């Protein structure tokens, strides 16, 4: 298995909000990508956004401006 690295993980209210994040970030070349939600967060499936920890504040601003409804923001090794 590849090595885990410290990351910022953003969970969303629904897959639709995750896709809203994905679309905006892709269009504006913002950092990160979609991953399956880590089990430490929930066993219930879904998509999360993963990026480097230093990108957390920038992404938070983007989500607030774009009204992307996130659930929680974690810093963890994935």
């Amino acid at each position, binding site marked *: *298995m*590849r090595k885990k690295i410290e990351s910022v993980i953003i969970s969303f209210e629904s897959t639709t909000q995750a896709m809203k994040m994905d679309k905006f970030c892709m269009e504006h070349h913002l950092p990160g990508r979609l*991953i*399956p939600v*880590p*089990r*430490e967060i929930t*066993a*219930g*499936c879904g998509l999360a956004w993963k990026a480097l920890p230093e990108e957390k504040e920038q992404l938070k601003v983007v989500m607030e401006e774009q009204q992307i409804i996130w659930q929680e923001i974690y810093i963890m090794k994935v």
Partner: protein
Amino acid sequence: MIYLDNAATTMKKPSQVLDAVIEAFQNMGNAGRGAHRATINASRMIYETRELLANLFGSEKPERFAFTSNATEALNIAIHGLLKPGDHVITTVCEHNSVLRPLYKMDGIEIGFLPLKGDTMEEKAQAILDYSKLEDLYQPNTKAVIVTHASNLTGNITDLREIKSFVKKHNLLLIVDAAQTAGILPIDVEKMGIDILCFSGHKGLMGPQGTGGIYVREGIELAPFIVGGSGIQSYSKEHPKQMPTALEAGTLNAHGIAGLHGALCFIKEIGIEKIYKREHDLMKRFLKGIQGAQGILYYGNSDLSKRIATATINFKGVDSGEVSDELMEEYQIAVRSGAHCAPLIHEAIGTKEQGAVRFSMSYFNTEEEIDRAVAAIYEMA
């Protein structure tokens, strides 16, 4: 990309499907609405698709087949249309949320769950249903048994003969969720005593998404979920009771059904025994290939003849989501991780926290793709 998530949906479709959909987009009107050539063309295609389905599933009555947008809709129609408060229904711990959630939503019904065999985790990991417990579950108010034909997690095939003899003994109705088996295993609604069959058009049948259907045995009347335009009896305030119109209010997804028509022609031409064998050989190749890898946990019946072409594993101690993400990012292999919309079986086999990694093969996968998946497992282990 090596696509091994065919249990979710088949990605590679027969060319007949694409041709049929494009033709439909250019030539079809609204089926069952009027008599001009465009609408008759649509109606002819739709009728023929019903015939192909009846032929595939061992029925002489195409009109008993109604189209739905997927198996989930068909199951909702069956459950809501059949059950009343005070009814008891028997289902299993292998079911998908498309069976469980409509059952949970029904007010006033009782649900019995057929469990898995075994006491140890090793036995439970085989995920074999304990048919000996069926009698214990029976109650005087039991109305029906609803079972999956094959588990979408383990690929284990439900023994429908056991279910049939139980159902016949107690004069119950049998509803089968064939989402994982339509187009893969032989299904004969007459011989198997199936009263209601719910199926997906876009998995084993290799048709477009947005297609599926429900077969309802003659003599059973399901209260419809949705009522509206019907193309007949337009001055009646009630929706027609005649099948299949009874369960088909509004415009059908005829463009999708045209694709399903193409897929059914392909399946008829090749034969499902050949399709099953091809997929199954690929599954066996995968499992045999990885058996030397360290730290792999296996789920499902070790007697592979009792399974469809699904192989579900875990890397010991590793989140299934991490495995599937690495398989995609590093190896471009698409699989499914997590809970697979089947909460009870994960709880029963002990994979609730970890989830599991599911590889599911189609007729169009190749030996080379399987061998690359095997190599990836060894590298990751």
